[in-house]
């Protein structure tokens, strides 16, 4: 495919946020989406870590795309991602120790997060650094939005707080189940259903 037929950096960025949202549209990288969304703070930290790794991997892959060999490209992608994840993991353990303890194994699990390897394959290995960086920023913004949407619902209903601040009245009966694993499944399923309600509504209007 020639580079001119691929989306421009601007389009890449916009696409990542909503039209090709990695979580709600492409259903990629769902482990952290469900696992670290019990509190908004951990969701934000996780999104930031993913953004750094995605940006780093996309830029590096885009820089070396001319020398990639087809059958070895996945290995190179994985190596790059694992390198960046180790760096982020160590940096976080050094400067944000409590958060790195809370995220636990989910930080190293970014290595096998499908979003990053998918973006390397779809965008960075075909386009220049500008487009790759814009794509990484757009996708991580979309990822952050999705994580924050789920996390705020879970934290608000489960603990009555947002980012640790009390939001709900003190009499709020905390829905502990929302913080527990089932709450993650329920919240994600219901949010997706909500999105498709909106979409169905729009399509219906267009037909009428």
């Amino acid at each position, binding site marked *: 495919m020639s580079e001119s037929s691929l989306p421009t950096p601007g389009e890449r960025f916009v696409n990542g946020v909503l039209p090709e949202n990695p979580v709600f549209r492409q259903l990629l990288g769902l482990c952290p989406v469900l696992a670290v969304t019990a509190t908004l703070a951990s969701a934000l930290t996780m999104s930031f870590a993913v953004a750094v790794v995605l940006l780093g991997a996309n830029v590096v892959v885009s820089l*070396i795309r001319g*020398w*990639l*060999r087809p059958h*070895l490209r996945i*290995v*190179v992608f994985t*190596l*790059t991602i*694992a*390198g960046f994840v*180790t*760096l982020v993991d*160590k*940096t976080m*353990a*050094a*400067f944000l*120790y409590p958060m790195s303890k809370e995220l636990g194994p989910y930080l190293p699990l970014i290595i096998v997060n499908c979003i990053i390897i998918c973006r390397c394959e779809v965008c960075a290995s075909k386009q220049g650094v500008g487009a790759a960086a814009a794509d990484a920023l757009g996708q991580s913004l979309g990822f952050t939005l999705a994580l924050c949407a789920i996390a705020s619902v879970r934290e608000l209903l*489960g*603990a009555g707080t947002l980012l640790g601040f009390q939001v709900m009245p003190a009499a709020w009966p*905390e829905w*502990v189940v929302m*913080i*527990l694993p089932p709450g993650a499944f329920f919240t994600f399923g219901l949010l997706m259903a909500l999105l498709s309600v909106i979409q169905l509504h729009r399509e219906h209007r267009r037909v009428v």
Partner: protein
Amino acid sequence: MKSLILHVWHQSGLLLATGFFFGLTLGVAQVWLEPRIQANRLSETLDRIPDLVPGAVSGRASGREFEALDAEGLVCGTVTRAGGGGFGGPIELLLGWKGQELTGVYILAQNETPGLGTRITDPDWLKSFAGCQRGTACVLNEDVDGWTGATISSKAVVDAVNTALIPEVGHE
């Protein structure tokens, strides 16, 4: 022969170069960050020592235990680690000692049900352990109250403390 080397280089040169690059980067990161990470890991325990041993202002590691130091830098107590199985997974505890007397308990890590089992982290409840003597078991609902809705979690903490109070039983 020369063409073979060229072929291998052609195919895997990028892989080798990336590997080398990241090896170098990680080496630098290791040298730069590792001391900080170790210090973080240690201070997680050391920061708790003033709350666990009365009169202590700082602490230092000594082998598997930690020594509590008072304002003059003299050893005024010890802090040990203990562990046990809770309702949702392992529980890790820090215990403060002054001679043979237990002076404080802190939950370092736990995985209990939020809102129910997590009541074991309540500082006031943990204070009720203070005063236990080494060699005498602490009894649930007599020396220490159990939490309603967190019976197993409370029992797990009491069991872990008892393992430290009566070492012979723990090593059986």
